[in-house]
C-alpha cells in the first residue's frame, strides 16, 4: 500500500508529465471531444487566424496576397470616413438594442416564471415565435411600406396626422428608430430561453435561507439570490446579445441604405469583400470587429461579477 508521501510524489510527477501522456491518460475524454474540436478548429479557429493574417496583406482573391504591413489598419482608422460612420451606427444600435433587449428578455422571463407551468409554456412559445420564424420580420416591411397603402402610412393618413405617405425606409429621420424597434421586438431570442431555464433552475431552498437571513422584498431576492445563481445563463445571454447587436448586417433599410443611416460595420466589411474584392481590407475590418467583441465580453464579465455584491 503506497504511503501518503508516495501519493504526493506521484501527484507531483503528474504535473511534470508531458501533454502527450496526459492525453493518453484521458483519451476517452479527448475521444469524445474530438469531433467537435476538429470541426471547431477547421471552421472557426482557422478562419479567424487566417483572416487576421490576411488583414496585413493586399488580397484581391485572384492574385496571391502581398504583405503590406499595417497599411490596412492605418487606412481604416484614419482615412476611411465610411468606416467611422459604420462604427458610430453600430454602437448607437448596439447600445440601444443590446442592454435594452437584454433587460427586456430578462424581465419577461422573470415575469413568466411566476405563471403556472401550462400557461407559461404557451406564453414562452408566443414570445419566442418571432425568433423561430425568422421571416416573421417581413410584416414590418408591410407596416412600414413607403406606399400610401402601407399599414403605418395608411393609419396615420386615416387619422389625419400626415397628408402624404412617408418613405420610412428611405428617410434618414426614420430609418434608425424603426430598425431599433424591430430589433427590440425580436430580442426575445435564445437568450430569453436560457433565462427562463436559469430561473427555473434556481434552488428553492436558497430563497428560504435568504428569507431567514433577512431578505425584505422581491428586488433583494432577485439581486442577492436569483441573479447570482443564474450567472452562467446571464453570461450566455450576454454573449449572444453582444455578437448579435455588434454583428448586425442586412436590415430592412437595405445596403448601404440612404445616406448610410443604417450602415453597419458588417456591411462595410461585406462591401469590401464582395463588391470591391479587397479581402485584406475586409479582414482588417473583421479583426477590429473581433477585438471590439472580445473587449465587450470582458467588460460584461466584469459587470457580472458585481452582481449580488
Amino acid at each position, binding site marked *: 500500500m503506497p504511503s501518503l508521501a508516495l501519493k504526493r510524489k506521484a501527484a507531483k510527477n503528474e504535473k511534470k508529465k508531458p501533454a502527450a501522456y496526459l492525453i493518453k491518460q484521458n483519451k476517452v475524454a479527448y475521444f469524445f471531444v474530438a469531433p467537435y474540436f476538429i470541426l471547431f478548429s477547421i471552421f472557426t479557429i482557422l478562419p479567424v487566424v487566417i483572416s487576421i493574417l490576411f488583414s496585413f496583406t493586399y488580397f*484581391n*482573391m*485572384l*492574385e496571391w496576397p502581398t504583405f503590406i504591413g499595417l497599411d490596412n489598419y492605418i487606412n481604416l482608422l484614419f482615412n476611411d470616413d465610411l468606416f467611422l460612420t459604420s462604427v458610430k451606427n453600430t454602437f448607437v444600435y448596439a447600445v440601444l438594442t443590446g442592454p435594452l433587449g437584454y433587460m427586456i428578455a430578462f424581465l419577461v422571463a422573470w415575469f413568466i416564471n411566476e405563471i403556472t407551468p401550462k400557461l407559461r409554456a404557451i406564453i414562452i412559445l408566443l414570445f419566442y415565435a418571432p425568433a423561430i420564424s425568422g421571416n416573421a420580420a417581413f410584416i414590418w416591411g408591410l407596416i412600414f*411600406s*413607403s*406606399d*400610401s*397603402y402601407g399599414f403605418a402610412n*395608411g393609419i396615420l*393618413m*386615416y*387619422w*389625419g396626422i400626415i*397628408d*402624404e*405617405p412617408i*418613405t420610412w425606409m*428611405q*428617410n*434618414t*429621420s426614420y430609418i434608425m428608430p424603426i430598425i431599433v424597434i424591430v430589433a427590440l421586438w425580436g430580442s426575445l431570442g435564445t437568450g430569453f430561453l436560457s433565462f427562463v431555464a436559469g430561473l427555473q433552475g434556481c434552488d428553492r431552498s436558497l430563497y428560504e435561507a435568504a428569507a431567514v437571513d433577512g431578505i425584505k422584498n422581491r428586488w433583494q431576492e432577485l439581486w442577492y439570490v436569483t441573479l447570482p445563481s443564474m450567472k452562467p445563463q446571464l453570461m450566455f445571454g450576454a454573449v449572444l446579445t453582444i455578437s448579435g447587436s455588434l454583428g448586425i448586417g442586412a436590415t430592412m433599410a437595405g445596403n*448601404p441604405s*440612404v*445616406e*448610410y443611416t443604417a450602415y453597419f460595420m458588417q456591411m462595410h466589411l461585406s462591401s469590401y469583400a*464582395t*463588391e*470591391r*474584392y479587397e479581402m485584406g481590407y475586409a479582414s482588417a475590418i473583421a479583426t477590429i470587429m473581433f477585438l471590439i467583441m472580445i473587449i465587450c465580453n470582458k467588460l460584461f464579465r466584469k459587470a457580472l461579477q458585481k452582481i449580488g455584491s
Partner: protein
Amino acid sequence: MKKNRLTSALLAIIMLSSAFFTAAPAASAAEAADEAEVKPAASVFSAMSYLKYQEKYAGENKDVEEITVNGGDYTASEGVDAVLTELDGKTGSFVQQSNEGYVEYTFNAAKTGLYNIIMEYYTVEGNATDIERKIYIDGKLPFTEAGNIVIPRLWINQTTIQQAANGDDETPKQVETHRFETVYLRDDADFYGNFEFYLSEGTHTVRFETVKEPLIISKIMFVPVEETVSYEEYYNKYTSEGYKAVENVEPIKIQAETPDLKSSAVLSPDYDRSTPNIEPYDGAKLRLNVLGEGSFSSVNMWTEYLIKDVPESGFYKITFKVKQNTARGINVSRRIYINGEIPFKEAENVEFKYSTKYYNQVLGNGETPYLVYLEKGENTIRIESCLGALAEVVRNVDDILSSLNDAYRKIVVITGTSPDVYRDYELQEKLPEVVELFGNQAAELERIRELLIDVAGEKSQYTSQLETMIRQLSRMNQKPHMIQDEVKALYDNLASLGTWVSDIQTVDMTMDYFIVSSVDAEAPKPTAGFLATAKHEFINFVATFYNDYSSIGGVAETGDVITVWTSGGRDQAEVLKRMINSEFTPATGINVNLKISSVSIINALVSGIAPDVYFGCADTVNIALRGALYDLTQFEDFDEVASWYPETALVPNSFEGATYGIPTTGAFEVMFYRADILEGLGLDVPKTWDDVYEILPVLERNNMTFGMSTDVSTAGSYAMYLYQNGGTYYNEDSTRAMFDSEISIKAMEQWSELYSNYGLPLSFDAKNRFRSGEMPLLISDYTLFNTLTIFAPQIRGLWDWTLVPGTVKEDGTVDHSVMLSVNSNVIPSSAEKNGTLENAWTFLKWFCDTDAQVEFAREIENLLGESGRYNPVNLDALAKMPWSTSQYKLLKEQLSWAQTVPQVPGSYYLNRYLDNSFRAIVNQGKEARELLIDNTKEINKEITRKRKEFKLTVYEE
C-alpha cells in the same frame, strides 16, 4: 388677376372632366357610336359590348340559310401576300394574309337573322403566337369583343418522349403543324361561347383585319345557330339505329401527356413525382407523365387524341384519371368533342371537383355514365378547357367590378384617395346613383356567393373574398355618409376582386390518362397505397445522393467538352439543353455540360472549377479588371457578333477597348397609358415633359397620378433626364463621374422636382394602380406589358404604350432617350488554360445568334406562356418576337433612343450616391448643386483609388 384666370381655367377643366365621369358613360357612348358611322380604325371602346348586342337582337330569327364565301373571293384588301388555288392537296381559292392589313368580302344574306361564323383556315409560319383578327361587319365592329378574335395555331410534340444520357425524360420540342382546320368565331374569354352575328336580308361586307400573325383563309361560312341535342336524344338516336353498348372489349388507355394535336405549345408534357401510381413511373429519374400542372389553365385550350383501333362500333364509357388541386371551392370544366363535334349537351360542361389526390371520373352525371358512340376504326377525342357553369358568374362579377371601378373613380374625384374624415363631402346628394349601385351590387354578389356555395358544396376562399366585398358594399349603401372613410378599403377590395376574377378563370387540371372501355370495365385504382408511397419516398430520398439535379440532361465526358453555367431557371436551362442536343452538338461536335449555378464567378475561379461559359455575370468590368474574364475582342469574328447589337449594348461590358461580355437580354422603359381615362379627361398622350407638366395638375385635381420609379439602379428615371439633356455619367476617358456638371445638376433638379413639387408618389404598386385607373400614365420597363396582359384582363384594349416623354432640343427636335440595361455572358479566362477557348466562343456565338435567340424565345414562351416572353437585345431577334407590328415598331423606335450606362472600376459607388442625393433633396429639401458636387467628389475618390489599384491613369484636375 393672372392667378384668378388660372384658377378659373383649372376649375373649368375639373368640371368638364367630372361631368364626363358622372354621366353614365358606357351605355350612352356605346349607343351613340352604334348609330353613327364608325370608321374601321375607330377605338375599340366606342363599340357596344356583346352583352348589349345580344340583348338587342335577342328575339331575332334563327332559321337562316348557310352562306359560304371562298377565301380568295375578296372584294377589298390590303397586305395580301398571295391568292392560292391549291394548298396541301386541296384545290379551291385561298387568300394568304400577311401580318398587316385586311381582307373584305361582300356577300348576300337571303334571310334576316342570327348567324354563327365558321372559318376554315390554314396556318402559316409566323412568330408562333396565337393569330388575332378584328371582325368588321359592314365597316364597323359589331361589338367590342369582335376586336379580339383568336384563332389557334396547331401544335404537336415533335417526337415521342426521349430520354437524355442521364436517364431523365426530355420534354419533346413543340412544333407547329399545318393543316386545314375550322373554328367558330367565339369569345376568347369564354363568357359567351360562339358569337351570334346579326345580319339583315341583303348585301353585307365582312372584313378580317389583322391584329397579329399571318394566316391563310380558306372559307368563311355563315351558319344557322344550332342547339346541341341532349344525351337522351343522342342515345336514342344511335340505339334506334341498332347500336348497343359494347361488351368484352379490351379497354384502350390513352396517356394525356402525348396528344396528337393541341391548340397551344404550352400544353407540353409535364412530370408529377408526388405519387408512385402514375404512368410512366420511375423512382429516381424524371418521367414526363401528366398533362397540366399549371399549363392547362386558360380557357379555350384543347388537346386532341387519336383513338386508333376501336374494335367495334357502339357505345363506350370514358374514364378520366385526373387531379384538380388548384381551385378549391369551384369545379373546373372541360368540353368533350368526339370526332370534331360535341356529341350532346352534357358534354359541353364536364365538371371536375377539387381534390389533392388523383381520382377516376367517368363521363356521366355521377350515377349513370354518359356513353359515347364511337365507330369501328379511328376516332378522335378532343378535350377543351372552358368556364362552364362559371361563365355566368365570372361575367357578372366582371361587370360588377367595372361598374364599381367607375363608382370608385367618381368618389375619388370628389374626395381624393385619402379623404379628410372630418369633412362632409355630401356624397349622398352628389352621387345618389353610386349609393344605390352599391346596394344593388351587394345583392347581386350575394346571389353569386350562394351560387358558388351551391356548386362546390362548401365555402371557400372564393366565397370569403366576395363576403368582404358584400359587407363593405352594404355598409356603404346603408351609411352613405361613411363612404369617405371606406375609400381606401374599397380600393383594396376592388383590387382583390380583380384578382378574384382572374383567379377563378384559371381552369387548371392535371390528367394522367383516360380510358375508353366497355360500360362494365373497372378502371384501375387512381391512388397508391401506404406501402407503395413509402417505398416511393424512400427511393426518392436515396436518389438524391447519386442524381445530380443541378446538371441538366447528363454529363458528357468524351470528345470536345465545355462546361456552361447558367443562373437562370430550370425551365430555361432545359430548353437550352434541348437546343444544344438537337442543334449545337450535331453541328459542331462539341459536347456541352450545362449546369444551373448561383456561385459567383470569382468564387468559382478561386476554387479552380470555373466553367468555360458563364451566363448572367454581374459586375463584369470590375471582375474583368482582375484578369478573371477573357477579352472577347481577341476573337477574329468578334466584330460580326458585335454588329448584331445596338452599339450601346456592348458598352457596359467593355472597358478601355476590351469587351468582356456579350449581352442576350435587355430592358428599357416605355410609357404605358390608359387610353380610356385620358380620353375621359380630354387629355392627349404626352409627348414631351412640357406636356407632362401641363397634364400633372389635371391628373392631380382628379386624384390621379403619374407613375415613375425612383430606383436609380434598375430604373432609369434619372438617366432618362440626364441623357435627354445631353449629359453623361462619366467624362470621356471614364476617369471621373460627371454629376457635378451643369447638365447633371439640372437633370437632378428636374427629376427630383417631379416628386417634391408635383407630388409624384415615391413608392407604389404599379400594376394595381394602373389597373384601377389611379395611375393612367406609367413609365415602366417594357416587359410589364406581358404582366398586364395576364394580370389585368379587365382593362384589355383600354391601354397602350408609347415613347417616354421627351425633351425638346434647341433645334426643335424631341429627344426620347432612355436607359438600356443589359445582362452579360462571359468566358472566364481559365478557359484559355483549359484549351477550351475556341469551343467556348463557338458556343457563345451560336447562342447569341439570331436563330438560336428566336428559337430560345419561342420555346420559353411556349413553356411559360405570354408572361414569360423573352426580351432579347439582338436586333434581328427582337424583330422576330411575337409582338404585333405596331408594338414592334414602337419598341424599335424606343430602343433606338436607348443608351446604356458604362461600367468603370468603382462604379458600384454611383448608384448609392445618386440615391443619397435624391433622397436628401426630396426628404430634407437640400440643394441639388451642393449635394451633387460633394457626392461627386466622394465617387471620384473611389474611382481614383480603384484606378490606382489597377495601375491605370488617374484623373487630374
